[in-house]
């Protein structure tokens, strides 16, 4: 069960996507059975892979750097858990939420394709396969954003499609430049032959293109214009996947892999990533404060919270990277929880406007508990998980003598708190509008996901030291030890 599980995490969702598409013509409800089944299998596989020693899987018997190779290290294991965990809860939630759509089997097929693409991105051992899987995930997400084919959704989807394709092409261009310099696309081989990246002007050019492309995919300011349109327009489970996982797997993960494992983390590039993060935290939260559309507010907070992750990663110290990865995990849990809550509110009340809500605590108790847990986590109140990761990031920034960045991060934490006090004030308490007297709580599959994610938010806050030791420090080690990565892939003494 060891190595073979790696390609299976990509192959199984793809196989099920095709199965759902073929059988969906005759039996429209097939997706709501096969989709969760596939998500459960890959979640199980990613927990199996968590226990496996760091290893590689060689495709078709061709030895790297000539053949294609899949690499499993601490960072990939962490990303697999995040991707497949959130995908599982979102797809369970979708069973009830998507039942009102006519072509729901197409939703499940696209959703599984997106998951397959992201699993491929985090396991791929060469740059070109990373690009191909990134395009699979991106194309599925472009289609999912416009899934409702209403005018706003189409507009947001088209904007996202154009900007996302530009980012993808720029990434391909960067890969072509790297190939021109080194004559290989295998990441470990590139790292082995490229030497000091700051001495070669073409490598600096390629790095700039990579940062542009991956930052756009991650939604960092100033490349964020598509995100507040695209994330709210999608159906709620897709919003949860886009904000919770997609911007991390295609953006932050790929950025980490290229800057640390391939290019050896030059300090100039790290400080660029750090300041991109600092600017994103500030701009995201300032734009979020004035929003009354619940999902749009959450999307702006995604920009802000991804800024925290980039800030932690950009510090380049083990503490900073571990804290950044911890915040990435936490953001995946609480932001997908909040988007699923917003979807539950929208389904019950028919609106996303906070000003038209109020007093929903009495009518929608479980959704309200979820909103409460998510809001408390994202605003950074103890003992929920957001508190620990934010304070660790700020402490790491202080330890690296980045006082301005630490000050901005602290200020943004208060801005986030203010923004979510507003959310709770408008949606949960206050007088209940007359039209909502007969509201019912959402069906079981939706409340199950909400409760499960709330509990994860609480548990990962209470037992964060255990999580740090088992997940985030191994991932940090994998990021920082470039020579170990090279020797593992190429099978030579590093």
């Amino acid at each position, binding site marked *: 069960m060891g190595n073979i599980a790696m390609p299976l995490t990509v192959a199984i969702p793809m196989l099920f996507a095709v199965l759902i598409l073929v059988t969906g013509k005759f039996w429209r409800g097939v997706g709501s059975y096969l989709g969760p089944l596939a998500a459960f299998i890959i979640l199980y596989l990613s927990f199996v892979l968590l226990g496996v020693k760091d290893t590689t899987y060689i495709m078709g018997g061709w030895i790297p750097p000539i053949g294609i190779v899949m690499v499993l290290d601490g960072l990939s294991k962490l990303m697999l858990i995040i991707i497949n965990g959130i995908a599982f809860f979102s797809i369970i939630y979708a069973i009830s939420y998507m039942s009102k759509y006519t072509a729901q089997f197409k939703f499940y097929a696209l959703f599984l394709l997106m998951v397959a693409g992201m699993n491929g991105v985090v396991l791929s051992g060469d740059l*070109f396969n990373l690009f191909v899987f990134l*395009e699979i995930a991106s194309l599925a997400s472009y289609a999912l954003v416009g899934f409702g084919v209403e*005018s706003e959704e*189409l*507009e*947001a989807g*088209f904007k996202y499609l154009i900007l996302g394709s*530009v980012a993808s092409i720029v990434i391909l261009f960067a890969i*072509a430049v790297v*190939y021109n310099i080194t004559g290989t696309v295998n990441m470990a081989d590139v790292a082995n032959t490229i030497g000091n990246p700051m001495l070669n002007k073409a490598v600096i050019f390629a790095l700039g293109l990579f940062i542009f492309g991956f930052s756009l995919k991650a939604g960092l300011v100033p490349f964020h214009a598509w995100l507040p349109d695209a994330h709210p327009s999608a159906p709620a489970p897709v919003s949860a996947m886009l904000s919770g996982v997609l911007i991390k797997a295609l953006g932050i993960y790929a950025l980490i892999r290229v800057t640390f494992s391939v290019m050896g983390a030059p300090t100039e590039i790290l400080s660029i990533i750090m300041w991109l993060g600092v600017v994103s935290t500030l701009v995201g939260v300032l734009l979020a404060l004035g929003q009354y559309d619940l999902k749009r507010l959450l999307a702006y907070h995604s920009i802000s919270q991804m800024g925290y992750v980039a800030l932690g990663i950009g510090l380049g110290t083990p503490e900073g990277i571990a804290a950044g990865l911890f915040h990435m995990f936490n953001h995946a849990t609480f932001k997908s929880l909040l988007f699923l809550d917003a979807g539950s509110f929208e389904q019950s009340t028919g609106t996303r406007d906070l000003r038209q809500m109020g007093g929903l605590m009495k009518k929608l108790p479980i959704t309200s508990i979820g909103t409460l847990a998510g809001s408390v986590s994202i605003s950074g109140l103890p003992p929920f998980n957001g508190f620990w990761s934010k304070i660790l990031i700020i402490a790491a920034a202080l330890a690296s003598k980045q006082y301005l960045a630490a000050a901005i991060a602290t200020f943004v934490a208060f801005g986030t708190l203010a923004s979510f006090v507003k959310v709770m004030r408008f949606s949960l308490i206050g007088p209940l509008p007359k039209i909502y007297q007969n509201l019912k709580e959402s069906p079981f599959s939706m409340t199950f996901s909400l409760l499960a994610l709330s509990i994860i938010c609480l548990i990962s806050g209470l037992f964060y030291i255990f999580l740090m030791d088992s997940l985030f420090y191994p991932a940090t080690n994998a990021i920082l030890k470039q020579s170990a990565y090279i020797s593992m892939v190429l099978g030579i003494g590093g």
Partner: protein
Amino acid sequence: MLLYILNMLVFGLGLYCLIAKRHIIKKIIGMVIIEYSVNLFLILVGYRINGIAPILSPGENPIVFSQVAVDPLPQALVLTSIVIGLGTLALMAAYSIKLYEKYRTFDMSEINRLKG
């Protein structure tokens, strides 16, 4: 160096078309031009003047062969990238049809209901 300048020229042309034109179809054409500039760059990276096809016939010396044959890897990469580009193009065309059905226009500046 000439390679980079040539590529950036075509890339810039596509980017201009994408940003400055308001018609959706023209934007899509700009997108395709950008895509092809990168494909062209990849092909030219592996090209060798007066090179031969990269097929090793029996009895040929591999070292001499590797000096004269063109690099086959970029061609394989470009094939993949063209197929991906086709998928993106199809999706963009589908989007533009649906947008026209909803807004009754191809002018991107009139498609602006999202704010905030």
